[in-house]
């Protein structure tokens, strides 16, 4: 049984709801769930974006992430060797078995909230994949090699919009600052060590999340400054996504995402 880092007496300290997984499976699943959940959120923007060019751009980013998710979930299923493929993992797990970071499940909000989330998360994925290219796991290394090119573009897209919203009109500046305040409580979790990651890092399989914070900040903070925005200092930080502890938003997201698949058990689509 993997030890939970929660302190005894706290609300999540003794939590045992999540299925216990072998650390390597849990790690790959976490990365896959990040991409899957965010791809789903971006899919919600299609036909609702501020201009047609953004329907196309956000769909592009969503499709890149969905591609990453499918490869990572399939790989996690192979490592687990319990017969679960990408769809079994995406559609048949419950809330407490999803291992994504809380930042990706947050509702889209307006275009500023989405831009803030895209900036923070793409910049994290950039640092993550940059290091995973050297992973001892050849599949992870291959995914990272392809994904780094994709997230370079995602990060750039978010940067361009952060600059334009931050340094555009008074209204856009106000909304962008508010968007950052909405998203920043979920930034810290990106750099926390998940359960048993240290062992994986020691074997060269995983990237140490703690080492990503500095290069991430070195990219993100100057962008905010150039955009005339203040780096938020949130009083509260979300935790627990890697242990299957999520915000209330995830349950609704999964209900919508999984319902049809679950309504026809065993069917092929």
């Amino acid at each position, binding site marked *: 049984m993997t030890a939970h880092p929660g302190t005894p007496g706290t609300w999540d300290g003794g939590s045992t709801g999540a299925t216990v997984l072998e650390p390597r499976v849990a790690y790959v699943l976490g990365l896959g769930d990040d991409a899957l959940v965010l791809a789903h959120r971006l*899919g919600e923007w299609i*036909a609702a974006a501020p201009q047609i060019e953004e329907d196309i751009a956000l769909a592009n980013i969503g499709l890149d992430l969905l591609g990453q998710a499918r490869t990572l979930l399939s790989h996690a299923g192979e490592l687990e060797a319990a017969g679960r493929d990408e769809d079994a993992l995406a559609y048949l797990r419950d809330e407490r078995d999803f291992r994504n970071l809380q930042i990706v499940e947050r509702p889209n909000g307006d275009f500023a909230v989405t831009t803030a989330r895209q900036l923070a998360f793409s910049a994290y994925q950039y640092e993550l994949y940059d290091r995973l290219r050297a992973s001892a796991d050849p599949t992870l290394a291959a995914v990272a090699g392809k994904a780094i090119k994709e997230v370079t573009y995602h990060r750039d897209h978010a940067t361009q919009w952060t600059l334009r919203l931050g340094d555009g*009109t008074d209204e856009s500046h106000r909304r962008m600052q508010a968007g950052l305040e909405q998203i920043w409580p979920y930034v810290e979790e990106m750099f926390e060590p998940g359960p048993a990651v240290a062992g994986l890092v020691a074997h060269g399989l995983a990237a140490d999340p703690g080492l990503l914070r500095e290069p991430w900040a070195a990219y993100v903070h100057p962008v905010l400054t150039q955009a005339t925005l203040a780096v938020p200092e949130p009083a509260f930080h979300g935790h627990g996504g890697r242990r299957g502890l999520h915000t209330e938003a995830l349950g609704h997201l999964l209900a919508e*995402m999984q319902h*049809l*698949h679950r309504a026809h058990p065993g069917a092929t689509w």
Partner: protein
Amino acid sequence: MDATETDPREAAFQDLIDADGRVEPRDWMPDDYRRSLVRQIAQHAHSEIIGMQPEGNWITRAPSLRRKAILMAKVQDEAGHGLYLYAAAETLGVSRDELLDLLHAGKQKYSSIFNYPTLTWADMGAIGWLVDGAAITNQVPLCRCSYGPYARGMVRICKEESFHQRQGFESLLTLCRGTPAQRAMAQDALDRWWYPSLAMFGPPDGESTHTGKSMAWGIKRFSNDELRQKFVDMTVPQSHVLGLTIPDPELRWNDDRGHYDFTPPDWDELRRVITGDGPCNRQRMEHRVAAHTGGEWVREAAAAYAAKRRAAEATA
């Protein structure tokens, strides 16, 4: 100039059309030709944009990751097609903003087919098979339309469209070979999308007001009824492969004509849906207008940023 005298430019223009040549953006053209083209291209573009809604409706509920990716890519293509077409319309001297204003004010239309609801997952397959199939039947002749930018845009669109129809058919085929519930879902979708797809080709030739002039100008190559018949003849054998029943008891092969006889769609329904009384007209427009007005602050921010930088460069 005497009103009864033919403008020599008009004669040269008609010669070009009759020789199957291409009219390009800076050529002289009759006002009517320009107006007709703007209307047709703009309404085609609006159709692509509005069409993103009924299909976008199922992205978050797609029952497999592969289908989710295919659907996202398809809807994304439709946005792209809208952009190609607005670009073609703009070469005629209108702006995209003006055209969107006309759409939002209800003064320009979009294809009536998108005023129907997508009630089940099988509707995604039915739309790909039937609606995209009908669109391709309409669009392939337009690749040879007399106006260069429109013809070139259509060539690009047709290349991308063939994936759309194939994936729709394949999705339905999977349902038809699946569980009884899936087969029933597929049949139900065909039942609801068949007649609206036939109506996509417009009113019967006798009632079509624009056809004559459009054909003389090489904008329209075949009549509504010709295209509708072509679509039926192509699609009926495909329904046999699926093992589904087209909801038309009068549908049968006519040896004398060499075509299928079929029940036409209800023309009253077409008229009502075109003029705003379809199941989803209000919803489609409200969604479209909300996206546009809701996004105004974003577009203004981008413009303000660009202006600030131009000003900074000017004084640098």
